[in-house]
């Protein structure tokens, strides 16, 4: 099955229904399924006319109608889309563009500051299309607007061939445990079967408000692709600053969230006077139509399921990872159990090895792009090793109760590789040893100061703390919020090491002088 099949079916069935709504300068704009697909085809034909077939094409930007039209233009032809996190520092984006062998880039005008850096750092890029109507300032042959790409094929009938179901459709980057992010290769069939296998329906025209980052598999596949398969109207949240306000504006019926969002919203709801009926508070806070919140990406405290039920909202937790396109199991409106992560999807087989959840099925990735060792370690005999420990109960619901791999999972769903951040923090002059841990929903740096520097400068404890905090503040400035360090612990003693002199991560919280032997 292809994503193109799903979209063409929706175009036929829902032509006049609004597919996307978004805000611009306080006005609401919209695109019907017919209009959306017209633009998707223009992008697809434009790419063909420009000689892009079987190529990798990156996208940098937050959610926008132009972003999704470009993404679909790429994957409905024979090209491969590489969505990247627009919040990453330039050097990381350059590395990902190069490592994914991307030969062209769609870039949001909000990120135009990256243009020069990317042009210099990514010599393989032949074209950069700015996601805007008007021609960019100082545009040249290489850098033009999305509108001009769409115009290339105006008078041409030539359209890209349909991809094969087993062709790679997209590469999605995910945190790697070795400190290097890995490109998850997903095929057309991986994505399309995941869309179909998440078994819930809504009336065409149902309103969804998309608040998660679009480069994440959960948002991309379950808000956008699943939404389009249902004939939903997907509304774009322009900024996390305005999430609550936009819920009131678009009045969604269904939303996807990460647990962090439920926690923040609940704080706000419970701050309302207890004298006001809960249904009324909910109507004001959520727009009055919200019935379902699907949540995933990190574990949700079941406490919130009951609390949201008081406001008439059903919270349904699911489980997945980019490597599985991404959903593996989900609670559904008609079929759910609190505390579980739902039943495995119909296209998924589950097994366990020493308690670790293994997954097989049509949504499991092909592998990590150009990382054969990591692929072999994760995919063994067709089974994907999830790194999570869990069990199935007697009714067939899946539960999680631990992790095998060394990744920090924050309640915003971001998976953080501590090594990746430690490598950067270790560059600080005053940093002798550092370990990053996940605590209180944020990242804490535990640092043992470099004793040579301390002695040379005769630094007091207070001075050490101030200087390290200033160093972290500086580091945080260039990082997306989920990679910022929110806690600092200055150690008095070095970390405990094992016999091969590696820091024992599980003992990182212990700060005692080593016994002298």
């Amino acid at each position, binding site marked *: 099955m292809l994503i193109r099949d799903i979209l063409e079916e929706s175009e036929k069935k829902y032509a006049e229904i609004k597919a996307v709504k978004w805000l611009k300068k306080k006005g609401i704009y919209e695109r019907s399924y017919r209009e959306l697909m017209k633009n998707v085809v223009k992008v697809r034909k434009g790419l063909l006319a420009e000689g892009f077939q079987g190529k990798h094409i990156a996208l940098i930007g937050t959610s926008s109608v132009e972003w999704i039209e470009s993404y679909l233009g790429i994957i409905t032809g024979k090209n491969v889309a590489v969505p990247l996190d627009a919040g990453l520092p330039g050097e990381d984006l350059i590395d990902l563009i190069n490592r994914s062998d991307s030969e062209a880039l769609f870039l949001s005008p909000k990120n135009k500051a990256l243009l020069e850096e990317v042009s210099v750092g990514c010599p393989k890029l032949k074209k950069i299309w700015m996601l805007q109507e008007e021609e960019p300032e100082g545009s040249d042959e290489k850098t033009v607007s999305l509108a001009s790409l769409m115009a290339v094929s105006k008078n041409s009938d030539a359209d890209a061939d349909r991809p094969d179901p087993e062709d790679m459709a997209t590469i999605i980057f995910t945190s790697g445990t070795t400190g290097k992010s890995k490109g998850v290769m997903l095929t057309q069939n991986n994505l399309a079967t995941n869309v179909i296998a998440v078994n819930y329906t809504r009336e065409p025209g149902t309103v969804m408000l998309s608040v998660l980052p679009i480069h994440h598999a959960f948002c991309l596949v379950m808000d956008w692709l699943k939404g389009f398969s249902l004939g939903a109207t997907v509304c774009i949240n322009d900024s*996390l600053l305005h999430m609550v306000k936009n819920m009131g504006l678009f009045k969604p019926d269904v939303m996807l969230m990460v647990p962090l969002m439920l926690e923040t919203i609940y704080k706000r709801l419970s701050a309302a006077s207890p004298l006001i009926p809960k249904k009324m508070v909910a109507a004001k806070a959520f727009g009055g139509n919200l019935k379902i919140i699907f949540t995933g990406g990190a574990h949700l405290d079941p406490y919130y399921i009951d609390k949201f039920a008081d406001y008439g909202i059903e919270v349904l937790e699911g489980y997945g990872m980019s490597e599985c396109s991404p959903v593996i199991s989900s609670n559904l409106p008609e079929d759910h159990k609190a505390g579980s992560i739902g039943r495995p999807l119909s296209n998924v087989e589950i097994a366990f090895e020493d308690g670790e959840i293994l997954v097989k099925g049509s949504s499991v990735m092909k592998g990590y792009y150009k990382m054969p060792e990591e692929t072999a370690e994760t995919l063994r005999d067709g089974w994907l090793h999830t790194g999570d420990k869990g069990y199935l109960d007697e009714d067939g619901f899946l539960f999680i109760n631990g992790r095998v791999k060394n990744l920090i999972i924050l309640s915003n769903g971001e998976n953080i590789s501590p090594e990746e951040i430690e490598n950067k923090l270790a560059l600080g002059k005053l940093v002798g040893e550092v370990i990053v841990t996940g605590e209180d929903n944020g990242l804490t740096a535990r640092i043992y100061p470099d004793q040579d520097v301390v002695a040379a400068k005769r630094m007091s404890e207070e001075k050490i703390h101030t200087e390290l905090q200033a160093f972290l503040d500086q580091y945080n400035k260039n990082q997306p919020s989920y990679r910022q360090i929110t806690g600092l612990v200055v150690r008095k003693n070095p970390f405990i090491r094992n016999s091969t002199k590696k820091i024992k991560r599980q003992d990182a919280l212990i700060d005692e002088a080593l016994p002298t032997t």
Partner: protein
Amino acid sequence: MTQEMQFKKIVAQYCKTEPEKITNDMRFREDLGFSSLDFMSFLGELEDTFDIELEEEDLVQILTVAEALEMMERLKAEA
């Protein structure tokens, strides 16, 4: 109610600290326990309450209550 107290009442909705006990040198993340999303949602509320518009790019600079308060008062004066 002073503008500052109104501001601190909004802060207090996201943490367990009473508005009167919130001092200007407190850091949102470390001292008041704000998550990144609490912080964004709080700033969105500042926009609505004080009728100001924030630029997302400027927000990374704000770490303490004093810095947010100063930004709000500056934008309010400019509006």
